[in-house]
């Protein structure tokens, strides 16, 4: 393929489309569905019948977007992280301080290696009472098949003040390894900029990491996340939990429910439907012997007239050899909400997801503050 074609592969046709449609990224059902939308009726739903027919047409931009970008987004669900910074005083104009010192730092942000390019540079904008930084990276990976060859990922970092408290909330959203690392750089720049302006007490943001908790507190933290917030999210069911037994606490109590794991179990993943009251999570005296790696909670939600359920995954990502497990940052992943009320339009769906994301971040903040010894009351 010529250089020009590689650059401009926003949409494909002909043999390249055929390769894409035949790949495992696109299901037979999806090919059949687009064919039918075009008014073409194939002899069967099998790819051997549908792919040749569809690849001899031109897809409209909307059809292509629906086909490709939805399948790519399956592989790159956005992940949210929250960090906080304590303000020096409640009348400090943190926004002015940030906007004065941050832009120069952002302009110095560069790629850490050649596998990606920052295609849209990060810039700070003010949206309501929040400062918003978005950017885009293009991943270059010529070793994989066409679909992976050039993928675009967005990263976002948002800073806002938390209600009446003297705390700034820094939320980062990433959907790939590259944007995860760039976000971390940006958060460090933000902390430095705010501290330089004299509005925050420390030059480091408070992250929620694995090492922020004792085993006990960590279990309590996860459990409390299932309570919901009484407004958007009601009490949820824990339906998946991953635990690791603490190798430094091998002397499990004699209770039959837990003693069997001694010297036998290293880690365990329990997949079920309402795990809220299983032995491990019910008995507080067991908490110190294991750590929770991840937990999936299925919440009922209500946003305006929209009602349904949403599965949220809370987890500490696995760390590489060079990173200590304590540094692993607490991450939130939201699945697409499932609506029990009649299907809402695209705008309403997006709004509901946004409300759920705000709600989970707020629950995480509150529960973390409850457990954190340093965040003494600000009154």
């Amino acid at each position: 393929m010529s250089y020009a074609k590689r650059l401009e592969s926003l949409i494909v046709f002909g043999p390249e489309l055929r390769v894409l449609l035949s790949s495992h990224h696109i299901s037979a059902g999806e090919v059949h569905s687009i064919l039918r939308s075009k008014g073409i009726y194939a002899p069967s739903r099998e790819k051997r019948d549908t792919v040749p027919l569809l690849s001899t047409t031109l897809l409209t931009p909307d059809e292509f977007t629906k086909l490709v970008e939805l399948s790519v987004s399956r592989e790159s669900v956005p992940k949210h992280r929250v960090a906080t910074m304590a303000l020096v005083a409640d009348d400090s104009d943190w926004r002015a301080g940030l906007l004065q010192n941050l832009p120069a730092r952002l302009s110095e942000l560069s790629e850490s290696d050649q596998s990606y390019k920052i295609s849209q540079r990060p810039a700070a904008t003010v949206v309501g009472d929040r400062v918003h930084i978005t950017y885009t990276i293009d991943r270059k990976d010529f070793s994989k098949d066409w679909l992976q060859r050039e993928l675009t990922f967005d990263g976002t970092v948002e800073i806002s003040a938390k209600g009446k408290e003297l705390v700034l909330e820094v939320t980062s959203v990433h959907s790939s390894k590259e944007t995860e690392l760039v976000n971390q750089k940006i958060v460090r720049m933000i902390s430095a900029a705010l501290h330089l302006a004299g509005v925050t007490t420390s030059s480091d943001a408070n992250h929620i990491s694995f090492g922020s908790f004792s085993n006990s507190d960590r279990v309590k933290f996860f459990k409390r996340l299932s309570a919901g917030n009484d407004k958007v999210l009601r009490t949820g069911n824990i339906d998946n939990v991953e635990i690791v037994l603490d190798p430094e606490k091998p002397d499990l109590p004699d209770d039959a429910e837990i003693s069997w794991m001694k010297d036998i179990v290293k880690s365990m993943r329990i997949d079920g439907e309402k795990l809220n009251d299983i032995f491990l999570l019910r008995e507080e005296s067991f908490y110190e012997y294991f750590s929770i790696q991840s937990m999936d909670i299925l919440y009922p939600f209500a946003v305006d007239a929209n009602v349904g359920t949403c599965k949220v995954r809370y987890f500490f990502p696995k760390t590489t050899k060079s990173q200590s497990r304590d540094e692993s940052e607490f991450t939130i992943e939201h699945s697409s909400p499932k609506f029990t009320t009649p299907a809402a339009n695209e705008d309403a769906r997006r709004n509901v997801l946004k409300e759920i994301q705000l709600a989970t971040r707020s629950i995480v903040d509150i529960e973390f503050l409850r457990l954190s010894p340093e965040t003494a009351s600000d009154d």
Partner: protein
Amino acid sequence: MGETSKTSGEIGEALAERITRKIGWENTIGNISVDCVKKSHKSITGKSRTTHGADRVFIYDSPFHEDQTTVVHISVKNSLNSAPAVGTLRTQFKKHFLELHEAIECSIFSVNIKNQLDAHSPRSRISHVGLLIWHFKDIGNRSIREDLKAIELTGSLNHPVYLLENSRLEFLFAVMTDSDKRMIGSESRFHYPELGENLNPGDPRRGNILPLELAASGIIPIVKFMNQKSTLFIYADQKFSGDAYKKLLNYALLIGHDLVLDIWIGMPDYDVSIHGESANIARLSFKDRTETITPFSYLPTLTSLLEG
């Protein structure tokens, strides 16, 4: 009642004949009698059929597969009423679909069809496909395709069937009408993008016939030659958005093959006063390409006076 059916049938035939002519299907063949060769085929009264055939047949050499000639078996259904409720619509569609499919199953063995093919001097592979042209009077350019999407078609099917209904027919009509008005005096051809495989590089990439595959795509590339210059028109049944326009630009630049320097992108709703800024921003994504690119609307409105 019989009178009205006849009239609606005649109107349907006339409509189909004219729209196919507009897309370059000059030699559609009508009134071919086909003997029924399958015992399982039944007529409306439930008796075994003796003859059936599509309303018209069109034969063309595929611009996408070098060894293929396509035979399109065309069935025309026209209603002087609005489209019925979804349930009835689906039932009617199944009936029309099966009727057409059965006609094709027997047509491939028909002497009359073979004679027509031989007169065409076909390539080594013959592909028989169905085309259902289905028009309702009172629904304008509303599409029934989404309502029909989920239909279960049982039985052994061997031939693909294409549906050109109101929205597609209106699109083809609007595109050809607009194209006729542009660059009057120029030589106008449909452009055939390289959609197939094993293409003979000697095959011409343009012609007078719009292949069925492109007619059903909702995207039509047309090239016009005048004063030794080529201009490429990409008509798309695609409402404007910055992202959609960028993708159409991509199509145009790939299809134009660096040979065409003047490109026009037609959408049904482009309005320079609303979309102009987005279009300019999208154009910047291809800033190292020197082609002149002009967006426009192929549906005439007052703001189209502002174009060009």
